[in-house]
């Protein structure tokens, strides 16, 4: 693992420890009250889910068109993180919604397209695991289509009548709410980088194992 890993991990851990304090001191939202504080973890997770999908898509494109094996590892790692952050988003969201909207789930465009994007990430992992030979390219093709879904997820909430808050919420946050949000978002970005590197490390070790097996057979 590279030299920056442990210091960044410590910083990230400390940020996560500090975040509940910041969140608790943030003001309540007028209509949603206490439950709105889920926002400070829900929104960064959602952003990391979309970022992971885009990273997976770009790495897959580079793998398909340039053939770099490292990009294939990045793509697989990013897909796992997309599933992870996606499931966090899809669970924290309904927990918030149960109180704020009165229902666990709504088939509006933001939720539906996010769920479908998450399922594409799960499908990617299934293909890698059970697809047999050639599944790396298959999954890369799938990831490209999944990435095309991402801008749709993000802007959909501005063009369709939906109950989910619009993207104008974040830029117009008052500082008292904005600071904890950006703090948590930074913590999540650091966490994403750490987890991505860790997962890529696993793939690199697997590749090393494969080459060892090959050298034994010679």
């Amino acid at each position, binding site marked *: *693992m590279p030299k920056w*890993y*442990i210091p960044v*991990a*410590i910083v990230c*851990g400390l940020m*996560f*420890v500090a975040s*509940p*304090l910041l969140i*608790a*001191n943030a003001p*309540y939202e007028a209509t949603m*009250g*206490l*439950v709105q*504080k*889920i926002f400070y*973890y*829900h929104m960064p*997770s959602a952003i990391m889910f979309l970022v992971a999908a885009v990273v997976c898509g770009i790495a897959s494109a580079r793998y398909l068109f340039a053939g770099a094996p490292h990009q294939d590892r990045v793509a697989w790692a990013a897909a*796992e993180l997309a599933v*992870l952050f996606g*499931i*966090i988003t899809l*669970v*924290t969201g309904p*927990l*918030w919604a*149960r*109180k704020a909207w*009165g229902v666990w789930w709504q088939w509006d465009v933001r939720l539906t397209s996010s769920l479908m994007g998450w399922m594409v990430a799960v499908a990617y992992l299934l293909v890698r695991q059970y697809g047999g030979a050639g599944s790396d390219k298959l999954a890369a093709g799938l990831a490209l289509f999944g990435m095309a879904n991402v801008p749709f997820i993000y802007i959909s909430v501005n063009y369709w009548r939906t109950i989910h808050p619009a993207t104008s919420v974040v830029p117009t946050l008052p500082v008292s709410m904005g600071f904890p949000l950006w703090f948590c978002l930074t913590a999540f970005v650091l*966490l994403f980088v750490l*987890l991505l590197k*860790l*997962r890529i*490390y*696993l793939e690199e*070790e*697997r590749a*090393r*194992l494969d080459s*060892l*097996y090959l*050298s*034994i057979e*010679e």
Partner: protein
Amino acid sequence: MSTLRALVAAIMLLVASAAFAFGPPVSADNVVAQAQSQGPKQEQQNEFTPIEQLPPQEQLPAARLLIAAYVFVLAALFLYVVSVSRRVGVVRREVQRLEADLKRTGRA
């Protein structure tokens, strides 16, 4: 790698316990009182009107949902780190075994 894993696990445990210990700085009762005092302006009440049950919106304790959300986030992240670390451990053990074998039999 095992020191790294221990470090990561320790940080995660620290975060989890901090989340529980620090939590919302006030208890649930105070939260409700604060929300009510900041709530919409109402007419001064002349009499109390009893109702049998809270309306559905008031029945859900928000604190429970909030804590559930944060616990889920931390648990999911922790489980993922454990999963990756376990897989790395399996692969590393295998690599070490193969390298030992190669060293013994002499590299081809």
